[in-house]
Every structure is written in structure tokens, then in C-alpha cells.
């Protein structure tokens, strides 16, 4: 295990998440993709904290704050998806085409 491995895994996670956001049409899957991307960023911070800058403890606060915000964002996201689903009976983003021009 070394920093390179951690960064590589994080980059892979980020890529998978980004692919998920761009390729999925279900809003739930898109939010999951975003969560993966945030997770990748946190993994990066933890990796740097462990291997590169063990004395820079502010990194651990960073991870804790991000973790909280990630949960909030997911909660609000799923709440919005639920209300869209109630209104439109769909969570497919391809069907949300009222606004364009």
C-alpha cells in the first residue's frame, strides 16, 4: 500500500461515479454516482493525510465535514426525487423535458 495506490483507487472511484452521473437516466442512480465521486475525494484526503502529510490534521476535519454534507445532500436529493416522482410518476431524467428552448 502506498499513496499511489490510494490515489489510483480514488481516481477509479471518481471515474466510475462520473460515468454513472453521465450515463444513467434514473435520478436515483445519478445521485449514487455523485456520492461515489464525493467518496473518491474523501479517500484522496484520507490517503494524503495518512501517507503524505500525517501532521496536517485539518485533513481529518475536512473528511468529517464532507461526510456530513454528503449525507445532507443525499437526503435532500432523495426528497426532491420523491416529490418529482409523486408529481410525474417517473424518476427518469430523460422524461423531464418541460424546460428547454
Amino acid at each position, binding site marked *: 500500500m502506498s499513496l499511489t495506490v490510494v*490515489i489510483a483507487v480514488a481516481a477509479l472511484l471518481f471515474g466510475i461515479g462520473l460515468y454513472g452521473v453521465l450515463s444513467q437516466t434514473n435520478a436515483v442512480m445519478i445521485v449514487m454516482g*455523485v456520492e461515489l465521486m464525493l467518496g473518491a475525494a474523501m479517500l484522496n484526503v484520507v490517503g494524503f493525510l495518512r501517507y503524505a*502529510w500525517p501532521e496536517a490534521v485539518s485533513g481529518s476535519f*475536512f473528511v468529517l465535514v*464532507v461526510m456530513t*454534507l454528503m449525507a*445532507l445532500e443525499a437526503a*435532500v436529493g432523495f426528497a426532491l426525487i420523491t416529490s418529482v416522482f409523486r408529481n*410525474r410518476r417517473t424518476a427518469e431524467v430523460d422524461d423531464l423535458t418541460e*424546460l428547454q428552448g
Partner: protein
Amino acid sequence: MNGRKLEGPAIDFAGLSPLLALLGGAVVVLMVGLLRGRAAREHGVPALSFATLAASLGLTIWQLDSSEELVAGALAIDGLGTVLNILFVSAGMATVLLSWRALAPRESAHGEFHALLLTSIAGMVVLAWSTNLVTVFLGLELLSIPLYVLCATEMRRATSLESGLKYLIVGSLGSAVFLYGLALIYGATGSTDFAGIAEANSAVGLSSDPLMLTGIALSVVGLGFKASVAPFHQWTPDVYEGAPTPVTAFMAVATKAAAFGIFLRLFDVALIDSATAWAPALAALATVTIIAGNVGALGQSSLKRMLAYSSVAQAGYMLAGVVVTSGLGVRATVFYLAVYLVMNLAAFAVIIARERETSLGDDLAAVEGIGATRPVLAWPMTIAMLSLAGIPATGGFIGKFFLIDATVDGGYAWLGFVIVIGSMISLAYYLRVIAAIWMRDAPAVAQSTPVPAGPRPALAGGSPEGDAGPGSVALGAESPPAQAGAVVYGGEPGGGKAHWEVALVAVLCAALTVAAGVVPQPLFDLVQRCGDAFTNLV
């Protein structure tokens, strides 16, 4: 580490007071929103929300001269912070007035609407004060998450929900990319503190460090999503059009101010020594943004969509002030933010007023002929459009002049040229609105241009002349053309009537726009304070 007593950081409560007022107000407003009395909810909540913002404004002015760290290097109050604070809070006060008798708070519960609004403003304040990557991300999310919900507050209108969901997806994607960039910057410098980052950057010379460069690139992308910089602007028209108009007005002005505040702080303080790496890239983005925004706005018939594209173009102008990395550039950007705030609020206030008076929603037809019938709305809209286009004697002209001056001074004269070209293109769509106001007749009901079908009409505030008389029913194609004089503009609440507070916001903001163009000195003096945050700039 073990056994050592941890000492809490010193907290400067006087400096934090504008932020604490907002957060305290949000809690109180949420509680008052639970009262059973209708008047308490419909008028008490907005009044309290307004009072909270006024208190925060007062505290900000009280702290105007302070320049110090607030909490352990995480937040700092300085010139830039206080000036941006004034902008956020003023935008919030205008939004409270605009949404007082709007549909959105009624649909979603008043307490929640205003609590979310105040929380979002608190997030902007955190963002504008932050001197640390952790607080930057915290502020960004604290401002964004309530906004996602605010966009969707007209819960029975499909477009409002759609705009909320779109904003959520794009916004959280932007946040994730931004966070990844911040993580890499932390990895390259070993510090989350702006001062620490700048120090590591200048000591080691990280301008060619791949980690640092990737981090900077991803941060630019992430902030680009927030500030709607092309090519990350595609969400802007959809979200602006779908959101309730008071929320759109708030988003357009306050979010932009917050995003540019952090653009200035992150790039001109923490990453200043890598300027050779990011400045040309940002200059290219600014050019693309100016062109994409101005060209996109040309063919729009929805005023909100048009203003959305126009806000993209304006973001490009302001980005030029970040690119030049000079004190002049910082002042020009903040000056433009202030002017942008008043001129856009004036335009949005007129759109809101017409949405309530007619059934045309935010279509261009809604303002046709108001020069003759509603001069109190026609003049603010005209002034706002002229100012957005940058005609002399308006704030927009001085702002653009200041920005172009900064670009020429900073060695980016070609970017100043792009701003001029962009303004010339923009005249086409701004003047179209002015022509519609003064040179067309008010759309009579019988010959009315196609009413935007489906999503809007039922919620736009009723029929235009519904109360004018039995003959002029909005839907009757056979009804006699309603003359302008037949339209009654009463002060009664609700029911497709004009509301005085909306007109007040429009007139006040238009007056300020002209004032900023004729006597810009007070605003210059205010903006001058922003310099003290940037000790490393000329």
C-alpha cells in the same frame, strides 16, 4: 498528543455576529411558521425574516472596518467579506419583499421557505469569509442545498420540481468535482488553510506539479458550475426558468456574488503563485462564456431564460476581473457584482409584477406596451436593460468600463475587446425588450400572443383583467380587446393584482442603478475596502 489539554480556538463573537443573526433568525422564522394564525404565517414570517436580514446588515455595517481572523483561521472578516455581506443581505431583503405575497412560500409553508432562504444567505456569508478549504466547501453546500429546495418550492408545478431536480443533479456534480479538486490541492500543499497553501505554493514552486495543476483545473470546473461559466452553464436557463421568480432573482444575484467572492479568494489569495497556470485558462473560459451567453440570449422569448443567458454573459465579464490578478481587477469585479445585483433585481421585480398582473407569465409579451400603461414598471425595466447592456449614465457602463480598464491594465487587453464585442451583441436582445415596452401596444386579450400553455397559467396569478369588468375575461377569444385603461391595478392582496412592494423593489433598484452610473463615488469607496484582503496584489 495524549494528555495535552486541547484548547478551544478563540472565537470573535462580535465579528461573527452578522452570521449568527442570520442563523438565529432562521430558527426563529421556522418556529413562527408553525403558528396557527394565518396572519402570523403570511405576514409575521416575512416580517421577521426581513428584520433578521436588517439586523444582519446593521451588524455588518458595525463590523465594516474590522479585519481579523474569527475562528482559528477558518473564517476571517475583512473588506471583501463585509462588502459581499452587504450584497447578500440586500439581495435577501429584496427577495423577502418579492416573495411576500408570492405563490412559492404559500405552497411550501412560509416558515420553511424563509428559513431556507436565510440559511442559504448564511452559507454565502460563510463562503465569503472562508479562508480555509473546509469552510469553503461547507459554505458552498450550505448555500446550495437550501437553494435546490427553494427552486422546487412551487410543489404542484412540474417545471418548478424539474428545475429543482436539475439544479440538484448539476449542482452536486459541480460540488463533487470541486471537492476532488480541493482534495488534490490539499494533497499537493499539505494544508487546508489559504495562507498555508499560498506559502507552500510560493516556497516549493508548485506551478508545474501535476497534483496541483489537476486540483486547480477541477476547482475551476466545480466553481464554473456554480457561477454558470461556459461550458458548464447549460443548467442555468432551465433552472432559472423553472424556479419561482423570486427565487430566480435571488439565485441570479446572490449566488453569483458568492461564487465570485470565492473565485477571488481562492485564486487571488491561495493560488496566486500558480497564476501563470490558471490565468490563461480562465481568460479562455471568460471568452467562451461571454460569447455563449450573449449568443444564447438572442433567440429567447422567455424573459427569465433571456436573463439567464445574460447572467452567463455577465459571469464572463466578471471572470475577466479575476483573470488579471490585480487589486484593480478585484475592485472591478466587486463593483460589477454590486451593480449587477441592483440592475438584475430591478428586471426580475418587473417580471414578477407582470407575472402577477397578466397571465402571460414571463414571456416577452407580458411587458409589451407597459410604457403607456404601467410607467412605474416600464422605467425600471428600461433602466435595467440599458444598464445590463452598458449604456452610459447607468451603473452597468461604469462597471464595464472599470472591468475593461482592469483587463487593459493587467495585460489582457484582448479580453477587454471581447467584453466590448459581447456588449454589442447583447444590445440586440436588451433593446428588443425596450422596444416591446415602448413601441408595441399592450396585448389585448382577444389578439393576445399565444399564452405559454400548460405548466404556468394557473399559477401565474390569475387572469390579467379578471377584476376589471365582466366583459374582459382572459380566456374569451371573442371578448372586446381590453383597453389599457380597463386594467385595474389595486392594492388588494392576491388575485392577479399589482403589489406595491414589488414595484418598490423595481423602482428602488432602478434608482440605485442610475445612481451608481451618475455618482459612482460612494460605491467606489465601498469597493475600495476589498483591497485589504489581498495583500499580495498590486
